[in-house]
């Protein structure tokens, strides 16, 4: 009896064990095989500026993504190269993928993010079929730089008539306008800011001839100084302002501490000054000629007593007038943009001769500006050239595709502000790659641009 019960028990147990061996042949639960749709980057990643150096990139999809597929299909890079980072899903929405850089990004660089078609959702499907050409989704942003330390530079935009100027603050915000003069002028004169950033000097092309000196911080008028007739070109140091009075055919020297004209000198041989730069390295003034028949002549003047040393002829490539002259911070070269052409020459103050001429592929020059490293030239047709001041070669070119005028560069050589009068905007271009960041609408006709040296909240 007992034996029989044991037999039956063993049999029952065996049957139960065997039942458990039945293989499961059912298909795994079906998974939606629709491809993931890329819905976009976050607003902070889409053309943003002043982006923190540790800023994460946020990508939004329509479904949960497989993070393991991102390293091979996502790139965040600037001109300095790609940057590594890690990926994670957003805590609140698993269809949001966040890329966090492993190290800080470089300041003041445009970073471009690329999301390739090979990123996959957790269902295994890639964003686009591998059989199709992979056109990545992209976005860019501009990292914060020196321009953002302790505030932002003030950008001043002079109207075409030179009667008022407009302020751009916090990179791209229109900050209002300030009246320079209520008198009719003969157009906008030069505007320059002293190297210590404390004063902005504007030449007022009035029949009487004045120079307005403003505080760049609050746009208050510090002084109005009478100069010769038709002041147009200005060069400033911390102490002096050298003003070329076109109609008066002389040069005014202004003491920027006392806001008084120290002297006014002209040339007895009939030399007519057109543009001027001061070289602190040799205490000389370099003045281009505005006299018919002597276009392209550079007069070198002792800045102590304003006596002429000698003239150097043919400093412009085609013997035309100068449009703009900018001297390097070490005083070694003067970049001379020719008037009404797209030619450029580089004048060596050591050799007192032109060492390089460049004929740029653009229409006529409009304005030039120099930083410690680069010279930027804006042409009327919207072409912007970035030129290495040591090698005297064009590094980059940007076509804004609109008529352009004045240009300014921020103190740390991070951004260019270029006036485009045709649409009354100022184009903001970062300097590393000449990428156009955005534009600011200005309520007036605009011509010249200047950037403060200091930053303001």
């Amino acid at each position, binding site marked *: 009896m007992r034996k*029989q019960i044991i*037999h039956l028990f063993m049999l029952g147990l065996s049957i139960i064990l*065997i039942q458990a*061996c039945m293989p499961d042949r059912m298909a795994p639960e*079906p998974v939606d*095989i629709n491809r993931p749709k890329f819905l976009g980057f976050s607003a902070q990643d889409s053309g943003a500026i002043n982006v923190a150096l540790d800023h994460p990139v946020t990508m939004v999809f329509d479904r949960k993504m497989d993070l393991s597929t991102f390293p091979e299909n996502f790139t965040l890079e600037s001109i300095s190269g790609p940057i590594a980072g890690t990926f994670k899903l957003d805590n609140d929405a698993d269809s949001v993928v966040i890329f966090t850089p492993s190290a800080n990004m470089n300041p003041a660089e445009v970073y471009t993010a690329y999301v390739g078609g090979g990123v996959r959702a957790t269902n295994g499907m890639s964003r686009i079929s*591998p*059989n199709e050409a992979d056109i990545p989704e992209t976005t860019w942003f501009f990292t914060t730089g020196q321009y953002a330390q302790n505030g932002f530079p003030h950008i001043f935009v002079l109207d075409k008539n030179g009667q008022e100027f407009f302020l751009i603050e916090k990179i791209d915000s229109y900050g209002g306008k300030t009246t320079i003069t209520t008198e009719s002028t003969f157009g906008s004169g030069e505007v320059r800011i002293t190297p210590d950033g404390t004063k902005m000097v504007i030449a007022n092309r009035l029949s009487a001839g004045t120079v307005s000196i403003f505080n760049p911080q609050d746009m208050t008028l510090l002084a109005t100084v009478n100069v010769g007739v038709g002041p147009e070109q200005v060069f400033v140091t911390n102490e002096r302002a050298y003003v070329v009075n076109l109609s008066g055919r002389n040069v005014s020297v202004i003491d920027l501490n006392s806001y008084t004209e120290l002297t006014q000198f002209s040339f007895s041989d009939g030399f007519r000054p057109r543009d001027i730069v001061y070289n602190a390295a040799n205490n000389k003034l370099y003045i281009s000629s505005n006299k018919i028949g002597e276009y392209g002549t550079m007069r070198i003047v002792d800045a102590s007593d304003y006596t002429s040393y000698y003239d150097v002829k043919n400093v412009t490539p085609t013997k035309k007038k100068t449009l703009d002259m900018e001297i390097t911070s070490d005083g070694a070269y003067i970049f001379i943009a020719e008037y009404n052409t797209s030619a450029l020459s580089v004048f060596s103050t050591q050799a007192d001769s032109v060492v390089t001429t460049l004929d740029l592929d653009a229409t006529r020059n409009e304005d030039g500006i120099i930083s410690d490293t680069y010279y930027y030239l804006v042409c009327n047709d919207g072409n912007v050239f970035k030129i290495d001041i040591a090698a005297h070669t064009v590094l980059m070119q940007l076509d804004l595709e609109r008529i352009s005028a004045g240009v300014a560069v921020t103190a740390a050589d991070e951004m260019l502000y270029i006036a485009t009068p045709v649409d009354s905007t100022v184009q903001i271009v970062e300097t590393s790659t000449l990428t156009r960041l955005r534009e600011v609408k200005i309520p007036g006709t605009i011509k010249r641009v200047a950037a403060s040296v200091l930053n303001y909240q």
Partner: protein
Amino acid sequence: MKAKLFISLIFLLLTVHSLFAIGEGKIVGQVLDKESGDPLPGCNIVVEGTLLGASADEDGFFIILNVPPGTYNVSAQMVGYVTDMRENVKVLSNRTIKLNFELSVQAIEGEAITVEAYKNPLVQKDLTYKIQAVTAEEIENLPVTTMTDVLVQQAGISRNIRNMPVSSGPAFGQFSTVPTDNLHFRGGRENEALYLFDGVNVTDRLWGGFSLDPIGEYTLSSLEAYTGTFGAKYGGAMSGVVNIAAYDQIAKLPKIKLQAYTDNLGIKEVSQNTNSYELFASVAIPGVRNLGLTIAHRFYSTDGYIYGYIYPEWVNSEGRDKSGEPEKVPMQYQDTQFTFGKLVWKPSSNFSATIGGFVTKTNQGLYDHYFKYNPYGAPRVNLDGHLLYGKFNYVFNKSSYIWITAAQYERGFLSRVWDNPDYYLVIPQTGTAEFSISGEDWVYFNTNFKRLEARADYFNQLSKVHSLTAGFDYNKLNTDLQRRNPDGFGVLEMYHYEPVEMNGYISDKMEFEDMGMIVNVGLRFDYIDPKRKVLKNLAELSQPDASMEEAKPVMFITPRLGISFPIMETAAMWFGYGHYYQYPDYFKVFQGTFYAQGTGQYRPNPQLENTPIADTKIEPEETVNYEVGIQSKITPELAFNVTGFYRKTSNLIGVLLSETNEGKRFQVMGNIDYATVKGLEVTLRKNFSSNFSFVLNYTLSQTLVSTSILFERPIDEALTFPANWDQPHQLNGVLNFHWNNGWGFSLYGYLASGTPYTRTSFDPNGERNPSISTVDLNVFKDLNFFGFKQQIFLQVYNLFNKINVWWVYSDSGIPGKDANPATSDDYTNNPSMYGPGRTIRLGIKIWN
């Protein structure tokens, strides 16, 4: 019709006084005094291990009736005589075993019995139609896996070979997974056989087929196949009867049997990841007289030999990228379980009761080449069945008894990809022209068939000549079917019908001992009420409120006749004739029906496309069978059997075109097809002696049909051509060696003509696929350790690794490549064109 009925009734009246046998066999013989030759009246003849027995009459004759099929020891015992025993007497259903005893006078008290091994007669003179039987002991050493494997070793039974791609099947392969018996009996279509388990009908009347394929060898007592003019007891089948007798004995001591085998031997090339276990226990329940319980369970699982592959980039690349390591997914797998239980109570010699049943589960896949790279998109099939029955036997007297049977049989069929309907909406169905990329097959079947059966069979041995059998059977059926379009899960077909089937029979087996002639004659009556409503006019199909009426029940009477007579001392001849009606499987009868919400009725679905609508009047299919045979002993151990047969079948279900009143054409399923089969079977059999036995079967046949595929319209109603399953030459044989040292082997070989295919529609099935052959081997060694018997066996299927070609491309005439230059080799090289390669299994059996 009336004349037919009248003739049948006259026939019945002429034979009603005679007596017949039913499902059990009987043992008859005479007991004589060895020395004097005088009869020994009163001698007791006992069937060991049972309560069966008889006393010899005044002439020494005895008859033991009601012997269940199986193998027994039978002894003759009489006081003063030495007991005489015959071992291993094989009793078959409806058959008479002759045993003559000659008892010696007991010289010394307590003298030992004499034992003699019984040799089953090679020439069975009471054979009036072809019976092929194998016992559990014979099956044990065969290289077989399923019951089908055993059946196809018999003459005239062949396995259905799928000789077309699944997706070419009816309604784009939707019907490819439906269950059939997968067998052809003497050239008939599939599902033309009746399947009985312990005498209980286990045929699925909704789909055809049965649930017994995974049955374990320990459950079996014997398996018999009747392929010819079987008797009147059996109906609802035109081509054959398979009668399975389960283990029926009450073991005095507990019997335990275990068996396990696997082909996971570390050799990938010969493995299909097959595992099988079987357990068996039979015990006498203590405290109750003659109450025995038998339980058996078998588990079988195989991955099959055809796989699908999931490449990592297949879906993502829209079916272009097959790089990387693919996941290998079995697509032709089969997992089965079969659990059997039986409680037998024999409290007295004139009463016994049996309660038994089985539960079977089958999960299987069907390879569809289109889903080769999306294997989970192909449907999975579940076939779950169970049987519960009670049988009660009362013996009125030594010559008459009755069996009362009540049973419930149920079989579910589920073919789908997902169980959750919502899942069908998740993945879109996409694919190239050759392979599926994503999504799933358009198959969803969920059906259930149930039969409640009550029957009575009465037997009376009226005289030595006449034995009468009569019976009545009542069946209440339940047929539930849902066929849906997985794309949206809309209903294509849906119904619940409860048909009623009744039948009665009477038959007489006349055994003229003096002439040696046997006559089996019988008459059968069937009544079938499908219990469905049909459209009064099928042309109103498109009208949602077209009037309907009850379908008329069908009735038919069928005569059966079989005669066997000796032509020599060692030879006999028989002749058989019979009409065999089979009401079609109910899925054909109800084809195209759905539940119309508007009228609240089951009615034909007018929106169905690609599948037909059942006709309003469905008649039974009819076969007239003629059979003539001769059997003769060549040597004491060798005999042959030659059978010629002719079958003419009409009213087969087929498809024709019709038109609604609105002029819309639709397909109708009705009784339009016909077929003829003629053939010759030759069997050469050697009984076991000198350590070996063999059976060799050769069948020459021709099967001509008007259509081969159920859902295919005939090309020409007047034209017949070879059926898709027609194989003119079939040769198979089993060779069995068993030495006294326990070593042995059995070898099964099969060689047959290929199936036909159509190269041009002007000559349907005019070409032949290559011939098919295989050799299977089972080598074993019997052991005896720790008081148990053991056997270690090694089975090699397809010993010579012959790659059989099931079908070829009709345009190229070869497998693997068609004549279309636009198709890829990967597409045309469909692995289901080929049979499986060699597999090797190692196993062990343990029993007491």
